């Protein structure tokens, strides 16, 4: 019940008493509408019964895409005015449709409200918490209902443009797209050797054979798959408003997982931080969905526990796997864990998600000094990694992921040339 009903009844009563006291019929006329409306409001008051249904156009979508949502209001007992508010997470922006909206629902009426939502950020959401506020004809009675018809919506991080992937140093035994060091069935030429019984005629190098007077055979490099483990550092993140170092890290993880899985590699995913989460390396499109779903659950949880890589299950990090670590290098624990991984002989690559663009602009001498110290400290960490033979590529606002991966590839080529 709203205060308006009491006010109208009060005004009517005061006017009627004044009419009696002064014996003037004009005041009865003034009191009449307030009294009549209050009486009618009380007589016609009833409890509305409204239900809601929520339907999403898709259950899964990509960050930045648009999704259609249909909210159906079904009124057994309607109301003169119904305010419908669909509660949405901040990451979903209404592009089309009014939210909240005031409408009329007659008894037995069914109304469909359509919304177009833009998924501004990745995440796993449940959409469909509907708040309804009903008003009667006279605005005397107001009722609020909450209808929970939530449906899941998964918004996957958008993909980055990557031209070339990092080639693992070691390959596995199954067929794939990487040129292995071992010789076997493949396309890439490896060597020449004299013919031995059992060799296939199609492998004979006729030009070399003609020159040397005996049969020589072409040898090829085998084409194998690789194990790739994407290790996401979730110890700490830098955040400013809606931007965070976790967002590009997840975009990169999703992109790399999809690309490696497309070329038949086995891909695993490890979230290493306050909460340890892992997926064993395997191949196929299902694994991509598993990885992306695991990524949606990723969050930065503040923890003081000193986790070591021994806490990661052994099978999660298979030997000879290429480990791609995505880290903002903000936590000492992740730094020491990565050095430990390298010490165990893993083929490790660090892609540093630079948090510098998220930091506030330094002010004053103390601010400048702090900024310089931070940059120097990060340089020192990078130096420690490079001394341990770990390539580090910085991925920030000014560079693309493709450029960062190219940088790592170049480092690895130089390093190999130096070691030979």
């Amino acid at each position: 019940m709203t205060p308006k009903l009491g006010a109208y009844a009060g005004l009517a009563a005061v006017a009627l008493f004044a009419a009696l006291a002064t014996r003037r019929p004009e005041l009865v006329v003034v009191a009449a509408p307030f009294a009549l409306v209050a009486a009618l409001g009380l007589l016609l008051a009833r409890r509305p019964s409204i239900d809601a249904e929520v339907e999403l156009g898709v259950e899964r979508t990509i960050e930045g895409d648009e999704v259609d949502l249909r909210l159906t209001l079904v009124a057994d007992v309607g109301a003169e005015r119904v305010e419908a508010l669909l509660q949405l997470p901040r990451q979903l922006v209404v592009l089309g449709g009014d939210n909240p909206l005031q409408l009329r629902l007659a008894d037995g009426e069914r109304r469909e409200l359509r919304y177009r939502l833009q998924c501004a950020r990745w995440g796993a959401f449940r959409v469909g918490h509907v708040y309804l506020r009903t008003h009667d004809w006279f605005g005397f009675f107001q009722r609020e209902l909450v209808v929970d018809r939530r449906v899941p919506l998964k918004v996957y991080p958008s993909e980055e443009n990557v031209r070339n992937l990092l080639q693992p140093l070691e390959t596995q035994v199954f067929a794939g797209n990487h040129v292995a060091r071992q010789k076997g069935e493949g396309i890439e030429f490896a060597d020449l050797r004299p013919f031995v019984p059992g060799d296939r005629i199609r492998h004979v190098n006729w030009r070399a054979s003609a020159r040397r007077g005996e049969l020589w055979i072409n040898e090829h490099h085998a084409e194998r798959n690789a194990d790739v483990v994407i290790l996401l550092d979730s110890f700490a993140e830098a955040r400013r408003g809606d931007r965070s170092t976790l967002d590009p890290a997840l975009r990169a993880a999703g992109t790399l997982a999809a690309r490696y899985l497309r070329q038949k590699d086995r891909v695993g995913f490890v979230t290493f931080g306050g909460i340890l989460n892992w997926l064993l390396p395997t191949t196929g499109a299902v694994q991509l969905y598993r990885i992306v779903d695991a990524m949606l659950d990723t969050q930065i949880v503040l923890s003081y526990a000193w986790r070591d890589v021994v806490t990661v299950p052994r099978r999660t990090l298979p030997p000879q796997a290429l480990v791609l670590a995505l880290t903002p290098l903000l936590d000492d624990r992740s730094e020491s864990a990565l050095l430990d991984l390298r010490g165990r002989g893993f083929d490790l690559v660090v892609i540093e998600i630079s948090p510098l663009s998220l930091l506030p602009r330094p002010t004053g001498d103390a601010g400048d000094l702090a900024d310089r110290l931070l940059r120097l400290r990060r340089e020192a960490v990078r130096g420690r990694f490079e001394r341990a033979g770990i390539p580090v590529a910085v991925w920030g606002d000014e560079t693309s992921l493709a450029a960062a991966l190219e940088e790592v590839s170049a480092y690895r080529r130089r390093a190999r040339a130096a070691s030979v």
Partner: protein
Amino acid sequence: MAAGLVAYSDVASDRLPAVVGGVGTAGGALMAFALATRWRTVFPFGIALVGASYAVFVAVRNGAVDGRAPAVAAALFAAAELGYWSLERSPSRSEGAVVLRRVAGLVGAAAVTALLGSLVLLLATGASGGVGLEAAGVAAAVISVAVIARLASRASV
């Protein structure tokens, strides 16, 4: 609308125009203050004071019944309804049909008020008075108070 009502009471008043004008101006100012500050509790007091200025006008008036009372009642009611409408704190966009029905309802209610008021005035001027009419008036006032008491008890629950 309320200002027009106060102006009418003041201009038409042949006795104590300063009191009529003063009470009406205070009422109008209170309504404006309530609307500006969105203070719902204060708003009906403003309406009451505007109504009171008219009550003073008719109470001190010499002679016959004010024939414009139905129009005054309709204007006061419409002012109250519009005031409460603007005091509604809702971020919702209203559908056109909802607004249209509301405006039509308001206009209709004001018209019915004027018609009923004319009827009441006609009856009141035609009737010779007496104990029966007096008793009906008292009963109406008591019922109003009973409604208020009932509403107050509901609200406290």
